[in-house]
């Protein structure tokens, strides 16, 4: 059983769990779709519809770092929201430390253990993009290789965007900046521009909550969202387009080099055949180019381990978890009998 097959099974399972997992649990989320993730102190939130209707102490009322969207029909979702939702929402409601710290610690723990492993194996948006890629392949269309220039640009842009999101999350609660008036519009730019916010409600039978064009801020956000959605849909032609600018991915990328999942390369066994680079959905060159260092974890890697799967040399590439090899590259064995001509 090769790695990619295992990954597909995990991806499909994770997709079903995260998107439709709510059907399997007995206690339902009954909060409204614009409910904040953590319980807000009542004196901060004035609007009626933001008042929580349920207590947030169920196990599944936690969050998961990658896209487990809040805007999915509340019946079907397993987790409350994704990490970006959580992190950008905490400041606006002034959530007390004891309320959000457990969630933050869980997030950091998962980051240190898995980092972007979650992108390649668990993220439902990633799985959707892989599905689009699969459809294209079945249709026999060529994939478009993203020019190096764009790859480099996206690599930088995602951190600019991530920083902007965090700055805005904090800026809207500081009265001196005068943004408090627009709190309702500027709240959760992450979610308002996320393709998952449109895709997930559709596949769970809800409405994507269309954008309001009633003021300039909303228009700008809607335009950015449309842009991001089209980048996401371009994954049909390129591979994993959205993953290149995903803010959650950018955040998880920071943990990629120190996490417990380690990708190791034996430079002497490497014949530099370029296969690892060619099959990489993120157009990563690190595994291919590295000839002196042993560890080839890269910030941009989504840990799909396609390179390990396709590497034709025995033990050239290895995936280790806590020092234990979980995957290793194997050369193909000849089939025993083959009688077609």
């Amino acid at each position, binding site marked *: 059983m090769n790695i990619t097959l295992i990954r597909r099974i995990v991806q499909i399972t994770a997709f079903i769990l995260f998107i439709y997992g709510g059907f399997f649990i007995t206690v339902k989320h009954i909060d409204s779709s614009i409910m904040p993730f953590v319980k807000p102190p009542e004196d901060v939130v004035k609007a009626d519809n933001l008042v929580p209707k349920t207590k947030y102490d169920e196990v599944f009322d936690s969050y998961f770092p990658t896209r487990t969207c809040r805007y999915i029909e509340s019946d079907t979702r397993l987790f409350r929201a994704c990490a970006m939702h959580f992190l950008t929402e905490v400041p606006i409601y002034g959530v007390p430390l004891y309320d959000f710290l457990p969630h933050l610690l869980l997030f950091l723990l998962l980051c240190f253990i898995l980092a972007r492993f979650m992108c390649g194996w668990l993220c439902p948006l990633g799985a959707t993009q892989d599905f689009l890629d699969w459809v294209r392949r079945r249709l026999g*269309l060529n994939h478009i290789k993203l020019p190096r220039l764009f790859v480099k640009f996206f690599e930088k842009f995602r951190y600019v965007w991530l920083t902007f999101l965090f700055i805005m999350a904090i800026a809207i609660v500081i009265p001196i900046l005068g943004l408090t008036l627009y709190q309702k519009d500027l709240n959760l730019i992450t979610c308002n521009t996320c393709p998952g916010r449109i895709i997930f409600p559709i596949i769970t039978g809800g409405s994507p909550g269309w954008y309001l064009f009633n003021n300039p801020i909303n228009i700008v956000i809607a335009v950015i969202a449309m842009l991001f959605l089209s980048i996401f849909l371009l994954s049909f032609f390129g591979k994993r387009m959205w993953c290149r600018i995903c803010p959650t991915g950018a955040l998880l990328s920071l943990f990629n080099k120190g996490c417990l999942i380690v990708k190791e390369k034996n*430079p002497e066994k490497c014949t530099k*055949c370029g*296969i690892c680079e060619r099959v990489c959905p993120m157009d990563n060159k690190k595994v291919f180019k590295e000839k002196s260092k042993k560890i080839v974890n890269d910030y941009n890697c989504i840990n799909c381990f396609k390179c390990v799967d396709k590497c*034709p040399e025995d033990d050239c590439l290895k995936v280790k978890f806590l020092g234990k090899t979980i995957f290793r590259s194997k*050369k*193909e*064995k000849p089939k025993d009998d083959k009688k077609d001509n």
Partner: protein
Amino acid sequence: MSEKKEPVFENRYPFEAKIQVNEEKIREIRENYIKISKINLEKMRRGKNRAANMAYFENALLDKTERIKELKEFKAKGGKVIGIFCVHVPEELIYAAGCVPIRMSCGFYDTIAPAEEILPKNICPLIKSSIGFNFLKVNPLFELCDIIIIPTSCDGKKKMAEILSNYQEVWTLEMPNDRDNEVSREFWVKQVRLLKERLENLTGSKIEKKVLKKYILKLHERTALVRELFDLRVGQKIVVDGRDVYFVLQTAFFDNPIRWMEKVRLLINELKKNIQNNKVIVKESTPRIIMTGSPLIWPNMKLLHIIEESGAVVVADDSCACGQYFYNPAELEEWSMKSMLEALSDKYLLPVVCPVFAHCDDRIDRLLELIEKYKADGVIYHILRLCQVFDFEYIKISKLFEKKSIPLIKIETEYSEEDAGQIKTRIEAFIEMLEARR
């Protein structure tokens, strides 16, 4: 169909490239080739416990009539036979176009002297021999070739293309010399695409995705088989010697690949049984040698004979005529024409350890890996006289091996048997040294 999108090399000043040798001499050379082949085979048969399945390959080499008949029938049906040099020509494309590639490199001494009439003195014997071998039609398969494809690897190959173009249509495949940058790789993909177009023009039909996929998978199987064969030499029990492996791989130069694969599969099965039954050809303490450097091409088995008759065994090599020939696979995950061409061009450029590329670090990595994997005791660096590229790289490799204290010996030789005695003395001393080191 005859209209070509891209003009191929047109020799505007052709000269009559005829070698002044009479028929009798040619016949003599042909007979000599068979004789030398037989002597070689005789020497190889001497060892005990040699696999019985080697017989097929011996017959295939000595008696090519069946293969010629097969190819003639193939040509009568409109198929084309294509002569290729080096390991950089994408064979999958040729098969998919409905053509058959034949590798034409040669290591025959007798054809050198006649070839010197139309060649400069100071070039490597492989070029001289290949040209002579083909011009003098010692190789009967040469007459069947419609086109010759020559990658512009080393200088000798480049100019050989020009000389051969007096005789026959020659296509060159322009190879980048520095493969580490993106531009060269893109350039090479374009070259492969161009080759595809040329082949399509030649046959008048498009290369179809399905057919190309079929052949990629088929040759992938060949790679897997060859790797399996090489892996049999990893263990302490040696059941096949270096000469035999070289020989088997080189029968694939011209043999029908499907039949060849079947026979190699049989050979592998037999060798596996031999390992189980402890039918070894040499005792376990025999020094294990890695061959590197210029390719040893049939019937130039002189050096291998000397090594293996002096009580050592060649366990691996990184030569383009054996260890590298089918070693690299074309792995890909989607089967669109674009990605297939990319995978093919990568396969024939990036992992190939040819010294024509700008630096040899990848080749050193490969050698170190071979030494570790095959538990080799020493390395023999073979240089064909006037093969500059290998000579250049020797210096870097020797310095590194000195630091790592890996025994290395450089043997500079030609195709002639004259220096056999001298080489024998040196190799024997080297092997003694290896035995003493253990």
